[in-house]
């Protein structure tokens, strides 16, 4: 790469681009944000008709709480203290996942260990790790109308995350609609992985060499701008 991009710049770029994809739709949207980069998306959304749903039972999540706003009984699904927005509502976990499973949540933004050419996603467990949990990931990828993955392009040790075929335990099959990394934005179009935006630091050839999955470049390929 001509200009290397730092971890924090990469994460910010991904979150900003996903936020912009919501603002660009210019309509009322209900979105659910996973932990990590996805949570950051809320900081960049500007549209007032975008409602953040937290699966632990809140529609209308506000900013992260600071100082005396912090209430231990008011948290998001990542256990972070949050604030309310006007018109927010609370409900039990079955109602919350009813919203998700019932197709009432427009988009889920989640991280991933791997996404493959078929739109399969692996993000719930690293079998070599010491973790034991699934959370709402499987419900979210099957239930939300749109599945948006925000993740860094490769792992810290340089292994591909956009792969030919997931080798880690699958969360959902052919569920991914959009993948945003710091190097590009990819859409699944009729089952094919298509690059629609490319970061200024890389050429198309460099991006192919940094990506295990095979992808098409859109005829209307655009630069990815912050």
């Amino acid at each position, binding site marked *: 790469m001509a200009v290397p991009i730092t971890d924090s710049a990469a994460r910010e770029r991904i979150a900003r681009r996903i936020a912009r994809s919501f603002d660009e739709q210019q309509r009322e949207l209900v979105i659910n944000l996973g932990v990590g980069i996805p949570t950051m998306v809320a900081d960049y959304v500007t549209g007032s008709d975008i409602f953040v749903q937290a699966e632990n039972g809140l529609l209308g999540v506000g900013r992260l709480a600071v100082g005396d706003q912090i209430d231990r009984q008011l948290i998001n699904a990542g256990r972070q203290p949050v604030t309310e927005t006007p018109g927010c509502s609370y409900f*039990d976990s079955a109602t919350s*996942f009813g919203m998700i*499973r019932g197709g009432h949540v427009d988009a889920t933004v989640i991280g991933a260990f791997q996404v493959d050419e078929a739109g399969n996603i692996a993000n719930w467990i690293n079998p070599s790790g010491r973790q034991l949990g699934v959370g709402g990931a499987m419900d979210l990828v099957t239930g939300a109308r749109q599945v948006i993955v925000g993740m860094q392009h490769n792992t810290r040790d340089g292994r591909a995350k956009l792969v030919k075929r997931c080798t880690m335990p699958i969360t959902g099959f052919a569920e991914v609609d959009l993948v945003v990394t710091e190097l590009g934005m990819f859409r699944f179009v009729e089952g094919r992985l298509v690059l629609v935006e490319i970061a200024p630091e890389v050429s198309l050839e460099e991006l192919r060499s940094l990506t295990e999955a095979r992808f098409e470049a859109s005829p209307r390929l655009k630069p990815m701008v912050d």
Partner: protein
Amino acid sequence: MGRLVAETALAGGNEDGGSMVRDRNKFLSMGEALALIKPGARIMVGGFGLAGYPEGLVEALAASGVGDLTIISNDLGSPGVGLGKLLTNGQIKALIGNYYNWNPEVAEAYHAGRIEVTLIPQGTFAEAIRAAGVGIPAFYTAAAAGTDLAVGKETRAFDGRMCVLERAIPADVALIRAYRADEMGNLVYYKTARNFNPLMAMAAAVTIAEVDEIVPVGELDPESIVTPHIFVQVIIRRNQHGGPDNG
């Protein structure tokens, strides 16, 4: 099982119950409530992380040393904190739940063969508890279809989409947390402390609710009651474990 009839006198911080008729008294002392939990029982516990879990009841259960328990909960708190204490104490035989990454002692105990763990996707987990409470023995959902968490479960396609048959999850006792109760046991909740609590109240043979405040019958707006009193058998007011709601 019908309403739990308690003959006991009021005790231990339950002075609010004075106006109750004796044979409908739902106000027990912590000790009397804990006596309802037998070794080997299936216990549901409300809460998401440390929000909305019945802190006083969990502390008392940890202190009681009752063992061989199956704990049905979203997570297991943090190591040595909240429900995590039950694991540290060796009181747990099995876990049914969805997210134990906040407490790495769970994976450790599981890999060492000390406990059984059944992982269920969060939405399926919530719905399975609700199902148990409303008399639905099983239901189909697309979540987890084809994944490692569906192994051994029946599957069926609906409208071209593969679904998994999930069984309802009932329990012997539910330990829940609510904000306010009236003297009959009608409950309202507080912000994201609600989570699994209203579902678990319906799904157990005996539901013990730990509440911050108890008010006279008629004081709660009937339109705002989330859990009607028929789902609550025992009410415990938060005492020295509780403090203010945000404490």
